[in-house]
């Protein structure tokens, strides 16, 4: 008994010694590029377990120990594998209230899961979930077999990557082995990949969120817009630093997936808000810009099911930095401007409902909202055309009725109808504000809906995925606000304002 305890203590102490913090900077090739071990460990453990810690150990430690168990330098252990879909839980004989299954148990169901995936011919939420669960089990096995952690072997001045278990023959001095590999790799390819370590460890977007929140508090509670502007500019600078790091890591404009577009739109809205503030000295722009910025940062931090923060290689079609940056940037900036108008419109609607607005105020805010809408519309038109030119340049087709481009056109058309409507007696001040608040739903549909609702197709609806739930909730909340604030006696009276 004592021997066993000593053995266990001894072996864990080896592992504890081996898996030190300085392993975080080792180079690893995964998902098509080279990254620091810390990033790979974080991404993989998060994917398998849905969490960033396991029994008090960090992802790095968990990943490291489990990997080193393949060459006997540590004890092997189990990980909880995340399963969310109720039918998937039933298939794996799990307790329906638990979202996790021990890896050893999960491995017994691998064949059954595969068969179930093959049997389901059409894509369904269950099939997607089973694919994910299968990949999680597979990832766990890869770590355990020392294949997930790749190590460079150098031949003819080129780094070839192999699983840890295949190359780490000398187990006595594993630390030196890794150290040498790292030094050799940096000597050959440079230490560019370490930038990602700085990026991940700095939590730079959390810092930005904090600054933006302070800016809001300063403006609202301390009633000091100057301090607010200072923090707004500070937020922008921090976000520029964060995006620059992503550019240096990926070598492309930071606007290639949902995570990055949300990031850029928050940034863009704050910049536009501050620029407009130069002309229209009203702190409401600052508040809207900071508020929307915080909203975006919030989503980036907590909606990782929908917005994947990892950096992965681009599909070949999009590999053109010039067009990518001009076209997508313009579109996202236009969404940012429209987002400002959306926030302003909602603020004004609520204020109006609470009876805090005079008619003159209402008209004044209509002008402010109108300015944002016009900036957004011009940028959107330019962005759509730039997209057409890129498509024409890349594959000879200016326009192809692709859902993404069609929806951006629908957004433009909606706002065009509203702007034209202002010249008729159909759209007065109150209705204009309501319509701009509602208009952002078309933006959300073009931005998120095409990816999360349209792309899934008819037969896989089931609102089980993060994106669809998010969108549904957004539409619902916005509609409720519109109903409460839009239909009121005050609103009916304000019909008289414009005519």
């Amino acid at each position, binding site marked *: 008994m004592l021997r066993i305890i000593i053995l266990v203590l001894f072996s864990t102490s080896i592992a504890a010694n081996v898996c030190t913090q300085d392993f975080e900077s080792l180079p690893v090739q995964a998902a098509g590029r080279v990254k620091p071990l810390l990033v790979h460990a974080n991404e993989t453990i998060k994917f398998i377990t849905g969490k960033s810690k396991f029994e008090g150990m960090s992802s790095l430690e968990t990943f490291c120990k489990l990997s080193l168990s393949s060459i006997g330098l540590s004890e092997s252990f189990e990980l909880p594998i995340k399963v969310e879909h109720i039918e998937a839980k039933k298939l794996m004989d799990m307790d329906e209230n638990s979202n996790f299954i021990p890896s050893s148990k999960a491995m017994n169901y691998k064949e059954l899961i595969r068969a179930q995936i093959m049997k389901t*011919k059409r894509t369904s939420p269950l099939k997607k979930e089973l694919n994910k669960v299968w990949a999680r089990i597979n990832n766990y096995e890869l770590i355990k077999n020392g294949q997930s952690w790749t190590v460079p072997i150098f031949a003819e001045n080129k780094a070839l990557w192999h699983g840890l278990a295949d190359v780490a023959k000398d187990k006595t001095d594993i630390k030196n082995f890794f150290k040498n590999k790292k030094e050799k790799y940096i000597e050959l390819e440079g230490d560019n990949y370490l930038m990602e370590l700085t990026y991940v460890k700095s939590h730079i977007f959390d810092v930005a969120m904090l600054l933006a929140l302070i800016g809001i508090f300063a403006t609202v509670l301390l009633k000091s817009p100057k301090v607010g502007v200072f923090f707004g500019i500070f937020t922008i600078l921090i976000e520029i630093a964060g995006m620059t790091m992503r550019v240096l890591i990926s070598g492309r404009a930071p606007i290639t997936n949902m995570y990055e577009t949300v990031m850029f739109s928050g940034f863009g809205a704050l910049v536009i808000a501050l620029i407009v503030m130069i002309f229209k000295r009203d702190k409401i722009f600052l508040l809207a810009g900071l508020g929307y910025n915080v909203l975006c940062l919030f989503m980036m931090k907590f909606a990782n099911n929908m917005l994947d923060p990892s950096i992965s290689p681009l599909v070949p079609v999009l590999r053109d930095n010039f067009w990518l940056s001009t076209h997508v940037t313009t579109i996202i900036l236009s969404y940012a401007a429209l987002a400002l108008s959306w926030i302003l419109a909602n603020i004004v609607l609520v204020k109006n409902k609470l009876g805090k607005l005079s008619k003159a105020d209402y008209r004044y805010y209509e002008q402010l909202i109108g300015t944002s809408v016009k900036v957004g519309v011009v940028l959107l038109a330019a962005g759509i055309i730039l997209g057409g030119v890129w498509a024409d340049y890349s*594959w000879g087709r200016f326009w192809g*009725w692709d859902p993404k481009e*069609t929806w951006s056109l629908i957004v433009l*058309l909606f706002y065009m109808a509203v702007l034209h409507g202002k010249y008729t007696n159909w759209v007065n001040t109150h209705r204009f504000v309501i319509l701009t608040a509602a208009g952002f739903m078309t933006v959300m549909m073009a931005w998120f809906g095409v990816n999360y609702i349209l792309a899934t197709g008819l037969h896989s609806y089931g609102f089980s995925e993060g994106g669809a739930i998010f969108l549904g909730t957004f539409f619902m909340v916005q509609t409720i606000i519109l109903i409460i604030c839009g239909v009121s006696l005050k609103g009916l009276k304000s019909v008289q304002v414009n005519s």
Partner: protein
Amino acid sequence: MGILPHMKNLNLLNNPLTSLGKAYKKLESTLGSMKFAVVIILVFAIALVYGTFMESYHGREFANKLVYKSWWFMGLQLFMFISILVATLNRLPAKKMLYGFYTLHAGLLILFAGSFLTYVTGVDGMLELMPKEPSNTVRVQEDQFVVGYPNGEVKIFTLPDGAFENEMNYEEPGLQIKKYLPFSKLNTVWRPSQGTPASSAVYTIYNENVAEQMIMSLHPESDFQSMQKLGPLSVHFMPETLYSCFTQKTESGFIVWNTEEDICYTAESENYEIKKTPTNNLFMIIPHKGEYLKFFPDFSPLPLNDDLTKRQDTPFRVFSKKLFEKKPNLFLFGDKTVFFHKRKGWLGREFTDKRPVSLPWMNFKLTLDSFRPNAYPAQVPSYSRPVQDQGEIIEGGIKAVLINFYGQDYWVRSDQPLALSNGDKQVRFQIKSREIKLPYQITLDRFKMDKNPGTNDPASYESFVSLLDGRTNTPASSHHVFMNNPLKYDDFTFYQSSYFQVGPNEYGSAFSVNYDPGRPIKYLGSILLVFGSTWHFALRRRKKRKFFEKESTIESQSEKS
């Protein structure tokens, strides 16, 4: 008295003129009005929403036929064009404050005109190149029905654009084209064998994980085969007469089938001698009509000529059972089945009372669902909206044309051409995309694909092609085509668009081929549009500062005019 009618005539003459003038005024005030603009913009937007959902459910082609390329959608765009045109003309003569407005709306009109020019005269097609094979065929997404007559004449019919069942009324002696289904799925129907003695049957093979229905037929006109592969398992549907031979014990494992007399026997029962070639290959000789037919059953069931080519003209087939012992093979003979069991050898089973037969692989079981000695299964298309799943059409992706050929109806399907005979003359029918023949040949010399390191995902793909123009005396020119670097030649531009695998590590390349005379016009319109909208809003803002009080009156005036 005589003057009055004359006056009346004058009035009649004048009336149409004034009413024409009134009509124009009315047109101006309705089609050019803001309200009409709002309505047409919204209707257009709603049509687009509908289109994107249709695209998501039913795929690109269906959405194109139903919405984007339909006549009513074209009509909507025409109304938008007219609305913008009249609204712009309404605001003439030019006022300085409206310069941005004129630029912006002129840009839109030019953009519309350019798009229309592209739509009418442009070409948007695909060129697929197999490695090292010259080609000049560009395929355009426009379906045609092609009839090839025995005298070499070819008639090409353009198929209608509708998204649903389209009636076609073409008639000539012996041939009638009745209708066209742009989207259909196949239904299995049973037809009498009519003199051809050939059986068909339906089986289900299943285990706890999978179930698969197998429809098999020996009838030559059936759309189903007598052989199928299910993963590693090969399934063979054979005439019932062969059952006894497959279950009989034979030393050599050679089974002889006389297709003329429809009898079978083993090599031993007929005392055919089995010999070995110097290279240890087994062979057997069957005397037939004064000839000696040489069989190498381990290579082919057909007799071989001296030059090792196969002979199709004899009724004999020789199977080597031993050949089927190495891999899973299932033999079906209507209501009986034979398979090889690793320990128990060749086993024969009969289907009785719908009870399943257990197979020796992965707990598979087999049931006979129906056995039709005198009927064969055929596949008949019926209209079905296509279904898209993960970007692929999984149902309803077949196009079909119904024809009547000398009194009998036939379906011609896009997935297989049809040849019909009247007497000894054969007429061929086919549904295919319209083809454009380029006056020069393009050859794919080399295809290069880079992958993201450590994965199988392509990072880039590039084609090295050579172009040979027979009209000039210049030698073939070499070009490097890759993403964002197209090849321009004559009127056409070739863009690298995708690739397809043709063998291990061998790829073919696909290019989108484009001819667009509307391009400069569209670009001009785009520039005017963006420039004009910026100008417009900037002008209006300045104006607002000056005339803030007057704004509403100016707007209501421009609305009225």
